[in-house]
């Protein structure tokens, strides 16, 4: 008996486990490898840009940093504006679906919002030019007339409405479904226990959400926002089609002079680029990479600083 038992608990190697865990490890490493490959590709292609001849840069810029500076600014500006608009609305929608709408309705409503995710970015571009920009232009005129003293709303107003603010609206609509979908799943997972605890203390529905749902979902909300931000930072075609770009750092939201975004600038200039011009464009891509890296580091830092208070366990 003893010897039999000894063999029965001693490991025969378990190939399934080995294969599976190595597969997951390989998949994980593959992602790192792809990313490293993209990074190396960008880095190698970028190097000539840093030492490029001043004449290679169009306009008044004479070196890479003065060229890329306004682009970085524009990219972040547009993405942040989009995020500021999209995140509260997305949280609102997710809450509406998870905690306010009648349950039967909620499913269908979720599907409706997912529909937005199905709209290709070209269509967002077409819609932005053809529908949104003409629609908001009169409002811009009013804003500039009334609030022109406030720097971001200073004139002269754009005649077409194709400003960075419109771009931010388009981006916000684009990233809305991603953030909404993830927030929704997370809000639905809030432990009933904690929701009931809040209600039993005499909290109204909103107070219950503030006490139990939002804090519990915070890390998830940040993750979702990061996904959305990533998309907003990297969106190419819609921005290229909608924005009326220029080459400076411009804070005004409603004029036809707007800082361009990196991705859109690449799309606009790549087809005609040659020689070092291509390297310069790819170097701006590298900068976007670095920006994303930094933004994500900040987000991680925020999540980690609240780890002890996270809903886990």
């Amino acid at each position, binding site marked *: 008996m003893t010897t039999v038992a000894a063999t029965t608990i001693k490991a025969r190697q378990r190939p399934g486990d080995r294969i599976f865990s190595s597969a997951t490890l390989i998949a994980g490493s593959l992602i790192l490898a792809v990313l490293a490959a993209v990074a190396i590709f960008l880095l190698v292609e970028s190097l000539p840009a840093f030492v490029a001849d001043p004449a290679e840069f169009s306009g008044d810029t004479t070196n890479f940093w003065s060229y890329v500076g306004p682009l970085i600014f524009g990219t972040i500006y547009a993405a942040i504006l989009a995020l500021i608009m999209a995140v509260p609305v997305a949280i609102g929608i997710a809450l509406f679906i998870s905690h306010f709408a009648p349950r039967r309705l909620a499913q269908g409503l979720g599907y409706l919002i997912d529909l937005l995710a199905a709209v290709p970015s070209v269509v967002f571009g077409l819609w932005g030019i053809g529908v949104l920009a003409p629609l908001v232009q009169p409002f811009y005129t009013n804003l500039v007339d009334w609030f022109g003293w406030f720097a971001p709303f200073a004139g002269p107003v754009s005649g077409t409405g194709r400003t960075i603010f419109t771009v931010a609206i388009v981006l916000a609509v684009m990233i809305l479904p991603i953030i909404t979908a993830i927030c929704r799943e997370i809000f639905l997972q809030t432990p009933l*226990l904690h929701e009931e605890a809040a*209600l039993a*203390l005499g909290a109204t529905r909103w107070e219950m959400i503030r*006490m139990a749902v939002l*804090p519990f979902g915070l890390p998830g909300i940040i993750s979702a926002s990061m996904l959305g931000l990533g998309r907003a930072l990297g969106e190419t075609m819609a921005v290229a089609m909608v924005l009326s770009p220029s080459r400076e750092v411009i804070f005004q939201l409603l004029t036809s002079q707007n800082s361009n975004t990196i991705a859109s600038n690449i799309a606009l200039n790549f087809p005609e680029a040659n020689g070092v011009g291509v390297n310069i464009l790819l170097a701006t891509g590298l900068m976007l990479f670095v920006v994303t890296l930094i933004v994500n580091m900040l987000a991680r830092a925020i999540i980690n600083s609240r780890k002890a208070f996270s809903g886990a366990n």
Partner: protein
Amino acid sequence: MSKRIEVNDLNVYYSNFLAVEGVSIVIEPRTVTAFIGPSGCGKSTFIRTLNRMHEVIPGARVEGEVLIDGNNLYGPGVDPVLVRRQVGMVFQRPNPFPTMSIQDNVLAGLKLNNRRMSKTDADDLTEKALRGANLWNEVKDRLARPGSGLSGGQQQRLCIARAIAVEPDVILMDEPCSALDPISTLAIEDLIEEMKSEYTIVIVTHNMQQASRVSDRTAFFNIAGTGKPGKLIEYDDTTTIFSNPSVQATEDYVSGRFG
């Protein structure tokens, strides 16, 4: 502060399923009342109707009336939020808010009404509630730590502290000790004993010994079979229920002396 609860012919539904039928019961102020009965007989369902937590579940509803000091909880225009302020609740599984510190957990209910509390007021209230829940000594050095870092028994007492911090009139407890070890259980039973002088307390328990130890009056619920509604079978002084019940089913159940 404590209040009298009077329930008249209450039917409780989950959508179309009648879970509890025709309960009428009067609970006097400053007493401890225990609900006992087999699983699924509707104890939890019923106790949750006493502070309108029942309706949190989609499709759930009641018929009949629950009067607290003569005011019908289910009257037209009654605000469930106000009801729940006056009737606190402690759940079976301790559920401190994991995202809050111990102190914030205690003050969670208070902060709802009283946004601007001075630091000293807040500290005083925290201490009072935690002392009331017999937890002060164990946590006084780590009020800023997350509440989820405590042991199960401590967490449960934290929840009690949180419930009494808002100074309700009635406290409902749904199997508050079932997840706890005997020492924590004892602590909570002692607590109930003390709180009795100020609050009306209703407790659901599976533990006959516990019911006989802590309660003044006991209500026995039973159910005829799955799918049938639960009913209040007998309601009397605890000593009577355990020594000399008038219904055979009650005697069968309590004489099992399980738990």
